[in-house]
């Protein structure tokens, strides 16, 4: 199975979200995709994160 390239992924994500940037803007979003994904991936390998809970609380009272 082939791996989709960044442009294919970004164009798919834009379509999924119903967004219609200009071609120049799509190019910029494609260029920013790889570094942004690489940074996000580091959040999964931080020491100590494996068993941590999210910093979001929920109060069932309204």
């Amino acid at each position: 199975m082939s791996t989709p390239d960044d442009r294919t992924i970004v164009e798919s994500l834009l379509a999924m979200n119903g967004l219609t940037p200009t071609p120049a803007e799509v190019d910029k979003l494609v260029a920013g995709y790889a570094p942004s994904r690489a940074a996000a991936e580091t959040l999964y390998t931080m020491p100590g994160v494996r068993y941590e809970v999210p910093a979001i609380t929920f109060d069932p009272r309204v």
Partner: protein
Amino acid sequence: MTEHMTLTDASAALKAGEVTSVQLVQDAIAVADEHDAAVGMFLNRTNDQALAAAETADAALAAGGEVGPLHGMPLGIKDIITTQEGVSTAQSLVLDPAWSDGDAVVVERLRAAGAIVMGKLTTMEYAIGMPDASKPFPIPRNPWNLDHWAGGSSSGSGSSVAAGAVLGALGTDTGGSIRIPAAFCGITGLMPTFGRVPKSGCVPLGYTLDHIGPMTRSARDCALMLGVMAGPHPSDPTTIDVPVDDYVGGLTGDLTGLRIGVDQLSRIAGDAEDPALPGTFAAAVAELEKLGAEIVEIELPFYAEMSTACMVMMVSEAMAYHLPDLQSRWSDYFEATRMTVGMGIYYSAADYVQAQRARRVGQLALAKVFEDVDLIVTPTSGAGATSFDQMSTFSDRMAEGGFGPIYTPYWDTTGNPVLSAPMGFTQDGLPLSLQIAGRPFDETTVLRAGDAFQRVTDWHEQVPSLAAVAVPA
């Protein structure tokens, strides 16, 4: 003229009968009349209402009754925070008239303390992005050099205080939007602890990151405003019921017994660090040491991860708010706004949750550092205000998810209180700024350090020579 007085001094002069509120308001109006077209500070000015309020304030003072701590003081409000004067535009064509419902809680509190609203101040659209000359809004220029940006997103809050068009202002901070314009414009800004100040009535950017805070000429003025603004409110469930200190009373001028961790963060800025930064920062740290603090070198834990988490959370939360309008009105948004918020497509729901888990890890690691030190200082930015010529580079860096030499988003992720205070100038004469961060809800110690620093330095008293500049073409 009174336009470059601190709030503290203006309030004292008013109560001593040396100046009237009408005079303070008239002086502020005169500055705005002269410089607003060039600097781009205001979206809406409410001179008549302000003058009427000033007359009322003077009459109340003459009658001899009790007055509030901000009685008769002219302030400005960033135009993503609602006021009773009219619709808040968030500096956007994608206007949501829902943001017109009277005073936000913080504005209500300021007014109850006697403050006078001079108008609504410029912002980056929806508190994110960069200036866009193709849209019908003022370009927020830096009073120190009109070829440079005032910073954002609380652009008008920074520039109007620096120029003297208001004596204090409200800003908001999600990734640095109080501290960046405070740094670039050479004023003092405080991002309070997350949950310290109610943000109901403020157009959201990042629900778990947004803070409202004061922007003024001094740490003492920030203490004065925070004392009025702080405290929980049922309209904002993220506020936390922690006792509100006497912030002004805590300004002792002495740092004896405090341990201060120092991280210059040059490893982050790299080549982008201004040549004047190391010496300026070292001199500022030396002043803190002379004031009695013990200085220790530290390294902020998980710096890159906390900055990344800020970006993931901010654009994901912003996209949740803006997606329907982005789908139907893409081109009505500023280019930098739609491109930055549009980065929300990069991240999955799992990434968002993971950012919130990483945030907890970072908070715990930072809390360990704060077991050994009382405060942490870093520069606010490794460089001075960005020039409009360099904005595309700045924009490209943001498009790649980076903040470059801007050292602010780390603290939005952790939620600690942080003061930005002027500490010198770049080689080109633009302000440089010191960040002073404290433990959660310990604004008292943060402000104490900022005030002590400003008692022995005069960087915060420097003002731009606006009279000499012309309106750019």
